[in-house]
């Protein structure tokens, strides 16, 4: 390419090692996998309404899928490794794109107004970070039990009841889940767009679906802590 250098022309651009759209596709695909997991997780959570036995049994079943063909915990471990990979990939791609965006505009505007941006789209990054931290806390709390008021050596059901009986813990879960809902609200639309499945005709439907889906899913999650808090369960 013959280019006559002029001042005001940017320095030689860094060679792009990766492709921003491919990265974005990684975000979308990993996001979709996590959404599928979230659906399963939410349905599993509802077992709490079937009582202590059923809930703990479900927890036990997850750990013994495939026995005796494979040893205990195998399937769960595979799921965990897969999920961890997905989370890391999601995070890596997002951070990489975030840094690219930072580099793309080092000097911000003195005055800048958002015209189309929604609260959900604006909070994707920090919201995502908060949700990520929440997941760590959530695993320490309910899966491993190390930060649970009841401690690790109890059943999942007991830990759940113990945790959500505390309004502060419930509040943490509610805030995080609402953030997650907003994350999904924009994320689902964005993934459709990123994977090239959106168009003018579908745009409204996709957005409506993203909204309804997010509300239903998060509602499904929230019903558990609230039921515990208000004594409907336990």
């Amino acid at each position, binding site marked *: *390419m*013959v*280019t*006559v250098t*002029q*001042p*005001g022309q940017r320095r030689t651009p860094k060679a792009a090692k990766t492709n921003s759209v491919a990265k974005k596709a990684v975000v979308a695909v990993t996001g979709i996998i996590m959404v599928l997991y979230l659906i399963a997780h939410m349905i599993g959570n509802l077992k709490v309404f079937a009582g202590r036995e059923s809930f703990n049994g479900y927890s036990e079943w997850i750990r013994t899928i495939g026995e005796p063909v494979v040893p205990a915990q195998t399937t769960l471990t595979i799921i965990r490794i897969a999920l961890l990979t997905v989370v890391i990939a999601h995070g890596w791609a997002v951070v990489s794109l975030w840094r690219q965006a930072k580099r793309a505009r080092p000097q911000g505007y003195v005055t800048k107004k958002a015209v189309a941006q929604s609260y959900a789209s604006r909070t994707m990054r920090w919201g995502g970070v908060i949700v990520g931290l929440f997941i760590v806390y959530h695993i320490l709390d309910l899966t491993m039990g190390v930060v649970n008021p009841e401690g690790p050596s109890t059943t999942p059901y007991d830990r759940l009841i113990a945790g959500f009986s505390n309004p502060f813990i419930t509040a943490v879960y509610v805030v995080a889940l609402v953030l997650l809902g907003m994350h999904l609200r924009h994320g689902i639309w964005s993934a459709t767009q990123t994977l090239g499945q959106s168009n003018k005709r579908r745009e409204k439907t996709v957005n409506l679906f993203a909204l309804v889906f997010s509300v239903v899913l998060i509602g499904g999650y929230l019903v558990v802590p609230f039921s515990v808090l208000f004594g409907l369960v336990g």
Partner: protein
Amino acid sequence: MPLDLFAVGDPIADTKAPTDVPIAERWSTRRFRARLVNPANRRKRTVIVVGTGLAGGSAAATLGEAGYRVKSFWFHDSPRRAHSVAAQGGINAAKNYRNDGDSVHRLFYDTVKGGDFRSREDNVHRLAEVSVSIIDQCVAQGVPFAREYGGLLDNRSFGGAQVSRTFYARGQTGQQLLYGAYQALERQMAVGTVEQHARTEMLDLIVVDGRARGIVARDLITGEVSTHFADAVVLATGGYSNVFYLSTNAKGSNTTAIWRAHKRGAYFANPCYTQIHPTCIPVKGDYQSKLTLMSESLRNDGRVWVPKERGDTRDPREIPEDERDYYLERIYPSFGNLVPRDIASRQAKNVCDEGRGVGPGGLGVYLDFADAIGRLGRPAIEAKYGNLFDMYAQITGEDPYETPMRIYPAVHYTMGGLWVDYDLQSTIPGLFVIGEANFSDHGANRLGASALMQGLADGYFVLPNTIGDYLADGPFGPLDDTHPQVAEALGGVQAQVQKLLSVNGTRTPASFHRELGRLMWDLCGMERSEEGLRKALDRIPEIRHEFWTNVKVSGEWDTINPTLEHAGRVADFLELAELMCVDALHRNESCGGHFRAESQTPEGEALRDDGEYAYVAAWEYTPEGAPPVLHREALEYEYVHLAQRSYK
């Protein structure tokens, strides 16, 4: 003829068109007889192309594809900004897709007649032939022309023709065609055949040993003035409507490249031929910086009128029918509101001169859609003209569905330009001129949808085939800045830049430009008279003198400085304006866009004088003080018979 203002030199003639064969065979014959540069030698020939509009962009891309080393120059940030982008209507081609009797010969005939018999038959015929290939080329590039439901290309009819031969892409045909050429050009830049010089303005032509060998250009960002050499130079720098300050041209459109080439020896042909478009949005105030054209298709449904009484400032909707003068329908009962551009423009001027104009300053006439809306309903009008109505509302803040539009003519295109032969070569060997910058195909009046056709014909098909004949003699040897003729050109440009910055007077370049534009509009605009032109010729040197003693250019030379750029362009307009007036004064006939008050029929229609003026006026530059020299190229009409136009 007022001989005091110019001298008469030897006649001039085109020698390249093979007139020994019938007109339909001349272009293929010329291509066969022209010498070629073999493909391996093409990369040893360098061509400079100045301008990246339809003509320059397509020429640079095509020459690059052919294997020449091309250097492309433009003053915008991107080649895509050239003002071809603003053309709305369409592009003509003799495809006869409508089976309505169109043919190459008919397009040729319509164009010669539309040009009021002041163009060269050979060139126009070639234009008509090539038009067919342009559409093929553009479609192959992906230009999204309007299509019908069957997937075929759509056509519409345009003024001056009785067939539907106009291809279009909504109201943005120029934009889409330009992007086609631009993309082809960028592709060549990517492969390295075309070297790009963005934001670089040509300020002089380098002529060495009688050949055009390069240009002096200023980098508009660093201010650096430098030389660029080549074996041939192609100017595709557009028209000079901005000599009128207010025109539909872009703010940056200028005459500098062709004017400097003229001063280096290229003859300037028919500078007084300017086209004035009747349907533009009127001027609102002295601050106004440009005029906006609206497609003349509006006249299909709009009725033009002014109040019968002068000074009637009532709301137009309150003026009763019997107090309105639908003057075009009154004067031209058979064509009515659809008379050609020049006639519609001049009559608008006449009613305004009578004091019956409307709107601020009394320079406007109504274009009323009330009847059409009543007859067809508002939705039908919206579907047809919605984008134009929106544009009007955006600019004026008035709702044209409710109150009549106000329109006024504005300068739009210049048919004059540097004289070229059939090969598009100017009187300086090695200097080729294409597109609106040359004079060649439109005579005294251009038909609608023909500008795009000519720009692309020149750039894609004509120049790349004719330039080889010249380059076959090359390469013409290396040059550097120490060559005396190069050093003189370079020094001259640097001196002018310094001069402009050092005057340090009290008036901005824009104020001189406005003053000149007003003068030209009043005295060398829609109607020209000996008295007015003489007045202009007295006044222009005075303005020019004041400019060089009282202009104020602030800022530095070594940085981007739009005021400095503008000042240089105004300086050239101040010289060109004088030649335009001389040309207008010497041509004591009315033809096409040139209307002389002294040459009209008893009914006030334009009256051509074929006995005296059936020639191209090619002007040779002489240094200040000496009058310009007129060289006449006689126009002979072998195929289209001379006839007076009538639209009554």
